[in-house]
Structures are given as structure tokens and as C-alpha cells.
């Protein structure tokens, strides 16, 4: 049902231009990876703190507030490079299980991060409770799945 849409994606001007270029895909991929580094850092500082390790000298709420703009910046870089990467190989993505695992976990991770994790992190101080630890662990697991499935798109 969605296949015609994926075919259209790949036929777009942007999709064609990237697929026809030698450098565009590798450069976009490299920037996508830089976004992953920033995303990983911005997530980990807070998730580790929620688990009770890492920067334990600061309250959870303070770290979460500081990390937030960098987390959002990282997500913008990821999406801005991820969409053109997708457009250049949409049909391959359509038949790729890893792609679907990634794309179904991603919205869950986003809603969880900005809906649940953010609210809890804001209300936590120096001693994160069990609820906070569970949320830190779930956040790590969700984003790990997104990243691992994302990497596996290229292998399968």
C-alpha cells in the first residue's frame, strides 16, 4: 500500500540528486553520524544521572535543563540529514526490516523522551527514585534500538 509513496520519494529531485552524486550520500551520512554523537552525549548525561551514576553532583532537573537544547539540536541534525538519506534509497528502505524497526521505535522514543522522561526529570532532585531509574533505563534502551536498527539498515 505504501510502496507507491516510497517510489515517489525516491523519484523526487532531492532523492535523485543524492543517488546520482558520489559525495552527497557519504557526506550526509557522516553528518548524520556527528548528530548521533551529539544525541548520544545529550541523552547519556541525563539518562546516566537518572540511573544514579555519572554527574551525581548535580540534581537531575538541572542536568536535564542544560542538556535539552543540545538534544533538540542533535535531533534536528539527525532529521535534516536522515530525510535526504532516506529519499535517495526509499525503495531499498521499504524492503528493509531494520528500517521499519527503526521507524517504529523512533516515534515511541520521541514521545517517551519529551512526554514522559522530560516531565519526570524536571521533578527529580539529588536522589533519583526507582521511577526515575526505570525511565533512564527505558530511554537508553529505546534510543539504543533506534541507533542499532539504523546501523543495521546498511547491512541487511
Amino acid at each position, binding site marked *: 500500500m505504501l510502496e507507491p509513496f516510497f517510489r515517489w520519494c525516491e523519484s523526487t529531485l532531492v532523492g535523485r540528486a543524492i543517488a546520482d552524486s558520489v559525495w552527497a550520500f557519504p557526506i550526509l551520512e557522516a553528518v548524520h*553520524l*556527528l548528530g548521533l554523537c551529539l544525541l548520544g552525549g*545529550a*541523552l547519556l548525561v541525563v539518562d546516566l544521572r537518572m540511573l544514579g551514576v555519572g*554527574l551525581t553532583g548535580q540534581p537531575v532537573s*538541572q542536568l536535564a535543563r*542544560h542538556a535539552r537544547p543540545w538534544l533538540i539540536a542533535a535531533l534536528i541534525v539527525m532529521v535534516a540529514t536522515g530525510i535526504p538519506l532516506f529519499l535517495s534509497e526509499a525503495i531499498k528502505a521499504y524492503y528493509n526490516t531494520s528500517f521499519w524497526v527503526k521507524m517504529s521505535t523512533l516515534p515511541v522514543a520521541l514521545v517517551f523522551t519529551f512526554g514522559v522522561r522530560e516531565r519526570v526529570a524536571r521533578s527529580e532532585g539529588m536522589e533519583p527514585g526507582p521511577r526515575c531509574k526505570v525511565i533512564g533505563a527505558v530511554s537508553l534502551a529505546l534510543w539504543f534500538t533506534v*541507533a542499532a536498527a539504523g546501523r543495521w539498515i546498511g547491512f541487511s
Partner: protein
Amino acid sequence: MIERFLEWLGETPWSIALLESLYAWPLVESTHVLTLGLFVGATIMMDLRLTGLAFRNVPVQSFTGRLLPWTHAGFIIMTVTGLLLFYSQPLRYYHNVFFRVKVLVMIAAGINAFVFHRGAHRRASEWGDDAIPPRAARIAGTVSLTAWALVVVTGRLIAYNWFDCDIQPQPGWVNWLAGCEAVTE
């Protein structure tokens, strides 16, 4: 000398098995890439603090004391998986332009970290609470951010054979950088 050794290394049964494996190589490579989020991610956070761009009211000693063990753990995983990947195709990587630039930049990043820890960081008790750290720390943070970004980009580009010795003709400086004269001799 090095060529002969790497050629021998690449012909050892484990090297061939790793390169030709259906899952081992992709798993090692994926671990290498995903650990970027831990190692480079944590490094970026500390560098942003050193440049005064983020976490301004978190003491620098919190980063160098409590986050650094996580960075080190990430570094160990990166090194082990990276060496394994090199072991799977030693001669190819040795003559890969991007690999060579990556190694040089990593050495530069290492020297930068060493200089910072031996220098400005020793007096961190005096300035660690400052929103904007002193010049030496800001420079160390900026150099580190730039260097690791270059390492990530060149690392990703190792996968492409554009400048490999068996793809000719190339400009002279590319062949020089890739050390191709030893191959064509």
C-alpha cells in the same frame, strides 16, 4: 617491513574468518559505531563545558571526575572494536587515505587532551566553577571538538575506496598520502 607484516596479518585464518563472517564483522562494526554515542558523546559534553557553551553551572571537576570514567569505558570499546576491524583488512586500511588522516587526527586529539590535563586542568580547583573557563581550557575544548568531529567523518569515509591504490590514476599527492609507491613497486 610493515607491508609484509600487515600482508601476513591479513592472511591469518582469524583475519579472513572475521572479514568473511556473516554476522561477526557487522556486529563489531555496529558496536564501534554505536559506542560513538558514548565515547564521542561524553567527550562532546565535556568539551562544551570547557568552551563555556553548555552546563555553565556544573563544575568542570564533575565532568573530569565523574563523567570521564564513562568516556574511558567508551574509549576501550572503540579501541578493541577498531583494532578488530583493522585486523580484518590490515593492508587495505593501512593504505586508505581516510584511515591515515584519522589516525593522525586521533594522535593530535590525544596530545591535546594530555596538554590540557597536565596544564590548565591542574588548576581546575581555581576556575572549575567559572561559567566561562580560562582561555587554555576553551582552546582545549575547541580543539577536541574539531578533532573528534574530523575523526568521525574520516572514520565513516574509510568505507569508500575512491583513493585506494588500485584505483588509478590519482593525483600524486593522493598516492603519496596513501603510501601507494610501496604497492606499485
